[in-house]
């Protein structure tokens, strides 16, 4: 039983990590209908910006987080202003924007490798991590922070999109951008806000996760953005809370599956779940019923 409890804790940590990235990914999808794969690149670059501030310039942990947050927000909103907005104005479909987004992901990832090298670097605030023990289950302070932050943000963003004017405006715009502009909503500015908030979130997550793992490398955003995509779709499209829920479910399944299936099959298992959900429950586990996916 204790083994199971440890798997469940690991699953919660992994699920929270996915949820943190999926939240921002879903927020951007809700506002602009783009699968913003470059979000993974923003995440990677933020970790390295934080590393430079914290380790190279010795600005402390607060400086590290600030650098990650600011650089992520800046890059994220720049991608929107320079790429997605002009494409939207030109009447290009989100499908093409999605392909362009792969290009941006490749550029950011490899520029990061050119600047900071292609070997992993150690990200540590020095000293020992505090380890908590609950019965036979172990966890660290960084892991608890990740779980807490993911839960708090999921609830905050869910109520923001449900109850606050700005949140409702963002959702309306995602559903029908033309109508939103007709009724006088500043669509462009609203989308930019989404990119800033979601990217800043990715920046904070990158630092938290980097500190928890202890090392960062230029590929770190690639797998995680795939997991965020899976999380958003199995949770339910166009719903930020559902994406976070999808992240938790995915992390849980992956870690509990380790019991029976070797961890090397995690990626294949996750994508198999994605395909099953796409085919049989396209609205996701927690999403509203909508026939948008199938032909």
């Amino acid at each position, binding site marked *: 039983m204790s083994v199971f409890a440890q798997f469940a804790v690991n699953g919660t940590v992994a699920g929270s990590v996915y949820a943190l990235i999926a939240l921002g990914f879903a927020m951007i999808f809700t506002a602009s209908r783009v*699968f913003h794969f470059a979000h993974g690149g923003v995440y990677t670059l933020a970790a390295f910006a934080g590393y430079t501030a914290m380790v190279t310039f010795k600005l402390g942990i607060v400086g590290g987080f600030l650098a990650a947050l600011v650089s992520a927000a800046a890059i994220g909103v720049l991608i929107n202003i320079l*790429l997605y907005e*002009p*494409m939207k104005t030109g*009447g*290009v*479909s*989100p*499908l*093409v*924007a*999605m*392909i*362009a987004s*792969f*290009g*941006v*992901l*490749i*550029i950011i*990832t*490899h*520029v990061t*490798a*050119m600047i900071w090298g*292609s070997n992993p670097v150690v990200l540590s605030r020095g000293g020992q991590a505090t380890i908590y023990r609950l019965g036979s289950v172990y966890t660290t302070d960084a892991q608890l922070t990740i779980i807490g932050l993911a839960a708090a943000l999921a609830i905050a963003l869910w109520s923001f999109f449900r109850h606050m004017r700005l949140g409702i405006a963002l959702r309306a715009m995602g559903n029908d951008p033309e109508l939103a502009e007709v009724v006088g909503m500043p669509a462009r500015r609203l989308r930019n806000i989404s990119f800033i908030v979601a990217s800043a979130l990715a920046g904070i997550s990158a630092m938290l996760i980097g500190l928890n793992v202890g090392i960062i490398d230029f590929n770190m955003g690639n797998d995680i953005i*795939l997991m965020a*995509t899976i999380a958003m*779709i199995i949770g339910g499209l166009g719903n930020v809370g559902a994406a976070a829920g999808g992240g938790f479910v995915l992390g849980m399944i992956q870690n509990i599956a380790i019991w029976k299936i070797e961890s*090397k*099959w995690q*990626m*294949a298992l996750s*994508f*198999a779940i*994605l*395909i099953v959900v*796409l*085919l049989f429950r*396209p609205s996701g586990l927690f999403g509203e019923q909508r026939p948008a*996916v*199938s*032909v």
Partner: protein
Amino acid sequence: MEYFIYIGTLIALYTTLTISLNLLVGFTGLISIAQAGIYGIGAYVTALLALHVTHDLLISFVLASIAGVLVSLVVALPSLRLKNEYFLIATMGFQAIIFSLFMNLEITGGASGLYGVPHPTLFGYTIRTGWEKFLLAAVLAATCYLLALRIANAPFGRLLRAVREDQTAVASFGKSVFRIKLSVFVFSAVFAAAAGTVYVYSLTALDPVAFALDESIFIITLVIVGGTGSLNGSVFAVALLIVLPETFKFLAIPEAIAPQLRQVLYGLLLVFFTRYRRQGLIGEYRDALK
């Protein structure tokens, strides 16, 4: 000289992969990123056959293609029920699953791949030299080009474009959109798998990394840069994007960053063409990628 033959073989291989994918993306409007996976199926089937059973070239082609078609059906049957972004994501899922099988199965040799593959034989003649292997790759590329050209100009090619433009209209004429899409998928898979056969026999080894998601995205980049729906564009883009990074070798760019720079170049081209020139270098018309 060996170097130029190697570059020529690469160009021929990617021409086959790009043209077969262009029929899917450019003519039919289906953006699949499982092409590298199917290419890999052909390569693994060929390598395993050659190592354990036979290295007869024709048998390799036939069995690799059959395997490629079977796997492409597994990919296509569920994915074709989805549209646009969701079709792309489903094919990406299959790509990830196929790659994971290559990396983790016992028989595929894991991350180190397979090596020591014998040279192929054709009617008792052993194809040994780099030059002969280049010819093999070139014949495959030419066959793929000519067949694709024939399809593009045939009534079936018009039907494909009609599917891209307006599925509902095609369906209302009593044509099965699903069957049309499926047949293009299968055609594409035959050539991707055959390219896998040529890849294995050229290198007499295989490396799973050649069949990863990045590779699928690279092939899509080639299709888009060349121009969706343009066969000549595909050939041109392949030649340009393979040769261009090779010039880094002569430009005194440090070896540590050359591979990164190559990826950055590909990423920039993908962004540039999707943003500013969606018809590609030699595109059919601007809105092929809407």
